[in-house]
């Protein structure tokens, strides 16, 4: 396969992992996170250091990176997920910036120079397998009792709590799972490009993953896949007009929010709230009966 297309496919795969894990947090639990790239960087740096310095096999390094990202997700999530709406968004943004600045200044991560010489371990097979595993795992979560509890929290947290759903527990759990897969995405990224820099995982990157989720359709698994695919391919197609690329990106976001804020695969607003709230009342009933 042509190297260029291979790289594009691998990027799409990594972005699918990133977008669908973020979709779990935003689309299924309604928690607006603006720090997803920070979890990716935790996974990227941890796994890269594991292979580079400790000589661990790639699979183990990926797992360690993901676990570290998940731990951070839980530690950060536990207090901040008490915050609502915009405040949570800003807290996660602040956390993401702190992680970036810390990586910029640590010696072990190469600081502002970045981390070089990471072994090239990521290949097409790894990516496709992990995309499938991520999709499968997230799908299982969403259609389990946990997923129904998450949906109930998104629809009406107060009501969900009054039905005995421990919202902090479920929100933190889901934040941790989201961070875990972001960590995997980071590990794959680091071992493909062989070089990582803190600014690769900045605020704007978090925004990019958010845009993928929103473009595809919040709370829709295939939506995240389509969003990730489109927002990886379109900028590539616009490469000839590189200067205008991000300019157009901004305009597209504004127009998209005006014309189809629910995303490509999202349901229209009135309909979705209607069926969802009916659905979720049934769920609450079921949970109560247990």
């Amino acid at each position: 396969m042509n190297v260029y297309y291979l790289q594009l496919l691998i990027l799409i795969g990594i972005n699918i992992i990133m977008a669908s894990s973020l979709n779990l947090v935003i689309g299924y639990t309604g928690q607006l996170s603006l720090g997803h790239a920070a979890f990716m960087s935790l996974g990227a740096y941890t796994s890269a250091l594991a292979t580079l310095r400790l000589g661990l096999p790639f699979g183990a390094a990926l797992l360690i990176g993901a676990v570290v990202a998940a731990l951070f997700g839980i530690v950060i999530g536990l207090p901040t997920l008490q915050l609502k709406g915009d405040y949570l968004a800003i807290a996660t943004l602040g956390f993401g910036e702190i992680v970036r600045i810390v990586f910029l200044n640590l010696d072990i991560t190469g600081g502002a120079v970045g981390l070089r010489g990471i072994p090239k371990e990521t290949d097409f097979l790894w990516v496709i397998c992990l995309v499938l595993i991520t999709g499968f795992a997230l799908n299982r979560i969403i259609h389990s009792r946990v997923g129904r509890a998450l949906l109930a929290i998104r629809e009406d947290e107060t009501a969900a709590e009054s039905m005995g759903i421990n919202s902090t527990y479920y929100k933190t759990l889901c934040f941790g799972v989201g961070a875990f897969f972001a960590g995997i995405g980071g590990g794959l990224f680091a071992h493909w490009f062989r070089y990582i820099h803190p600014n690769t995982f900045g605020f704007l990157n978090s925004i990019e993953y958010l845009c993928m989720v929103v473009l595809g359709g919040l709370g829709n698994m295939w939506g995240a896949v389509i969003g990730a695919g489109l927002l990886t391919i379109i900028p590539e197609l616009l490469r000839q007009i590189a200067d205008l690329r991000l300019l157009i990106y901004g305009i597209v976001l504004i127009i998209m929010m005006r014309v189809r804020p629910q995303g490509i695969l999202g349901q229209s607003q009135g309909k979705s709230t209607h069926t969802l709230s009916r659905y979720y009342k049934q769920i609450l009933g079921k949970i109560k009966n247990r």
Partner: protein
Amino acid sequence: MFVQQLINGIILGSTYALIALGYTMVYGIIELINFAHGEIYMFGAFTGMILMTRFNLPFPAALLLAMVTAALMGVTVEYVAYRPLRRSPRLAALISAIGASIFLQNLALLLWGSRPQNFPSPFKIKVYQSSFFSISQLEIIILVISFLLMVGLSFFIKNTRTGKAMRATAQDRDTASLMGININRIITITFAIGSALGAAAGVLVGIYFRTVNPMMGVMPGLKGFVAAVLGGIGSIPGAMLGGLLLGIAEVAGVAYISSQYRDAIAFAILIIVLLFKPSGLVGLPDQEKV
């Protein structure tokens, strides 16, 4: 040493305060984090620089015109990116705001390139020395202008008919419209004033550091928002206090801890405030309605 740090902190903080005012006023009225505000600040700085270098305007005229230009720009952003989404979900408006921010940033890159440009200093470098501290004429002028703007704004909000209407609209939009207040007009005025203050901050920072570049709005924009949250989002005196405190904390952090973590200090403060007193220092009681 201590007095000197305090003065430096107040100078930096007064520019944060001017930026924070724009965030807090807009958030107070339409509950939206105006992500494009940092870019308005950047455009203000560029406009001031261009008016002084290419049109040879004197500093006061350039400052005033930059404020007017930024006001028009802020109003346009509101009209194009926020107004059509007034009844949409919060997330849609937030993403539209991010789109506007990305667009403006790249517009500036397209217009002026990514290289920093010199900002001419309109004042002679005259330094006043005392046994405790030294302060330059330029620094005094920056302080005087920002304090005049803040006093002027406070007077306007407190005493004028439009100022009272702005406060009423922030407290209860529907009821304000029942009083005969044209809400759209108030929102326009809010964006105009907030953007003008942001532009003033941009020009002042420009003459202070004598350089401008298209990315200069990102960090001060985020920090201005941190200052607004620190003071209590929606509160005008809070934004002023938050800005000053953030400036002082940052300068103290650089002096006594480490200059590398300069930008992390603001975000650490942000997270601490959000966790322990999300309503901010002079914040209004918790507004989260059940």
